[in-house]
């Protein structure tokens, strides 16, 4: 546990120093990558560990975003660190609360039914946030800029996103090594057998669901702060749900670094390489999904692993 943690810390420090040498555009791209990676990893906690594929995780992004925006009075006056913590904190709490509320009925469903049910939850919440004026979803809510004076805005959010991503990775690593993780793997392999063997599947699933929701909500808050003005459409987006899944799949569902790698690769592809190929970027994303599913089902990590194994074999048999 210690070695990976040290490596992680080293990587984080390196990434944290990058904004000092990169231009603001690249800092923003990095920020996008951290947000996407964090979201994909948060989804993975439920989808990768337990194989409960949620197609509606954008609901937590939206809930987190609106929780942060609407709880403005709680944090608007105060030091920027307090603002950030309270904003993200209220997002995490509200997302966790909503998750806790729906967890038991929703997690009774298996397979495809769970998938559609989460989609339904996302759709219902999106419509509710628009339809009921108290949420201000249709008219939109503004969030004040909480970056400390003197610091460049994009750097502030870059570091905030990096910090939150680090927290998410550590939580994922802890889960993977704890009983919770092993229990979730058991659920993934064969839930009925796990139940019969005495694994407290319901409790474990609900825990994973709540953790996943809270983390997703936190990233939702950062997403909202970064945009500065949110409407229902900008945070309750089906595209965001699907991106989380695509990133995890493209990177590789076998490791917690899969979602991160997938998110970085896809963001680089769509925001940098394809930034000028505009008309077709949806089609290209679609083709990438199809190609990855057919040709590289274990994701990029799987491809690299296979390549290394082939090299080793070739080395032994010249």
């Amino acid at each position, binding site marked *: 546990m210690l070695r990976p943690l040290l490596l992680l810390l080293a990587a984080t420090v390196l990434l944290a120093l990058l904004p000092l040498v990169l*231009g*603001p*555009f690249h800092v*923003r*791209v990095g920020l*996008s990558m951290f947000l996407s990676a964090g979201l994909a990893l948060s989804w993975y906690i439920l989808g990768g560990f337990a194989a409960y594929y949620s197609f509606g995780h954008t609901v937590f992004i939206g809930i987190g975003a609106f929780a942060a925006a609407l709880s403005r009075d709680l944090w608007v006056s105060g030091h920027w660190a307090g603002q950030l913590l309270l904003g993200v904190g209220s997002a995490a709490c509200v997302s966790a609360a909503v998750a806790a509320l729906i967890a038991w009925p929703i997690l009774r469903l298996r397979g495809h039914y769970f998938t559609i049910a989460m989609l339904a939850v996302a759709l219902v919440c999106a*419509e509710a946030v*628009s*339809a009921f004026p108290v949420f201000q979803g*249709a*008219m*939109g809510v*503004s969030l004040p*800029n909480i970056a400390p004076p003197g610091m460049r*805005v*994009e750097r502030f959010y870059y570091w905030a996103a990096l910090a939150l991503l680090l927290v998410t990775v550590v939580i994922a690593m802890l889960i993977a090594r704890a009983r919770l993780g092993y229990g979730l793997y058991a659920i993934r392999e064969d839930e009925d057998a796990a139940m019969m063997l005495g694994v407290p599947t319901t409790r474990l699933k609900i825990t994973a669901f709540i953790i996943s929701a809270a983390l997703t909500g936190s990233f939702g808050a950062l*997403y909202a702060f*970064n*945009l*500065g*003005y*949110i*409407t229902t*459409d*900008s945070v309750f987006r089906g*595209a965001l749900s699907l991106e989380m899944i695509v990133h995890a799949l493209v990177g590789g569902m076998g490791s917690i670094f899969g979602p991160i790698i997938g998110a970085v690769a896809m963001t680089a592809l769509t*925001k940098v390489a394809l*930034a*000028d190929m*505009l*008309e077709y*970027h*949806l089609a290209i994303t679609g083709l990438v999904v199809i190609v990855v599913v057919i040709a590289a089902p274990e994701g990029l990590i799987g491809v690299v692993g296979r390549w290394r194994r082939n090299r080793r074999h070739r080395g032994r048999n010249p």
Partner: protein
Amino acid sequence: MSISITRRRSLELIGAAGAVAVAPRVGAQALPAITFGGTIPFSGRWAEIGQSVHAGYTTVAKYVNEVLGGLEVGGRRYRLDIKMVDDASDPQRGITLLQRQLDDGVSLFLGTYSTPMVLPQAAMTERARRPMVQAGGGGDAIFTQGYRYIFGMYPRASRSAFPAVDSMTVLNPRPQSFIVVYTNDPFSKPQGLGVMARLRERGFNVVDSFELPFQLQDISAVLTAVRDKKPDVVMCLTSDQNSLLIARQMAQNRADVKMLFTSLGPQTPSFRQGLGKFAEGISCISTWSPSFPYKDPIFGTTQKFAEYYQANNTVPLIYHQGTAAGCIVAYTSVLRAVGKIDDTEAIRDGLARIDIESLYGRIKFTPEGDGDPVLMGSAVTQVQGGDLKVIFPAALKEANPIWPMTAWSQR
């Protein structure tokens, strides 16, 4: 050894010289450029509108570069360079790409489309102290943040449909009862609420109102209300798609009214074609029409702009191109007055004070940056004979309003 290096070096030099020699030279490439930056939706939900707006910008630039030989500012000639990238109708993508342009030193910005896309970008250009003149975001939220560098080519949403209400006051005999329908979004809702308040102010009777979601497949509730309450006029502040749905269902179900007004919709030829003879008499607002009788500092008249546009573009000419062109005309007028191309403070001040006549109409902004409600208010147009004709205000009128419109059941 030394011979091959010399040979290689000379080959390199020849290659470089050759590359420079064959580098394409287009139009007024030799002139330095004034760059206008920003993002536009070329794909996604707003793609069609994005393409129209972009066509408006590029047509003006083309005219200035090719026909006028560049814009003269402070004694030097410059070409106009419209450098817009695709934001795919995604606010997050928009702000990431805008950052690149801010980094690259672009100092003058044009806007994207829809309030949720424009507002986050306005925050960024405001922080960077660079002006943005845009024709895509009219929500009140944009103009109530205290921003100084953002300018909009029409009045804010809550005021933007006032001309529609005012056009009702000159109808004879005066209509009595109204039903107001609006889409629940940051633009149409304030528009709708503003319209209802103004109708009441002017002494009209609003007998019912409906708030619709953006995605809707059926409006039978509205039809039922029209049948039961028999209003004289139905006013819709709705998205293109909802407008089409409402018009179709009303016609199909013969929900007769004396006038149907839809803020968005009839401006596009496909709307009018789809409804055929049932489109006749539907009115809408238009921030601009090619028939406007204005004089313009670049093209001479609105007419000449419309002609030049038709000769050089395939995207159909609707009001978006006029509004977009107005942005460029505003910028060029201020640049000429200021005499410098990179003094963003002076340019901002120039925009804040501007008061000129252009192909778009009078350009004059309120202190908050949106269009002056009287001088930059929209015109009201009506479908007559398959075309749109301006029916209000009197100064721009092309034809008399068809009032009352022929009932659906009699077509």
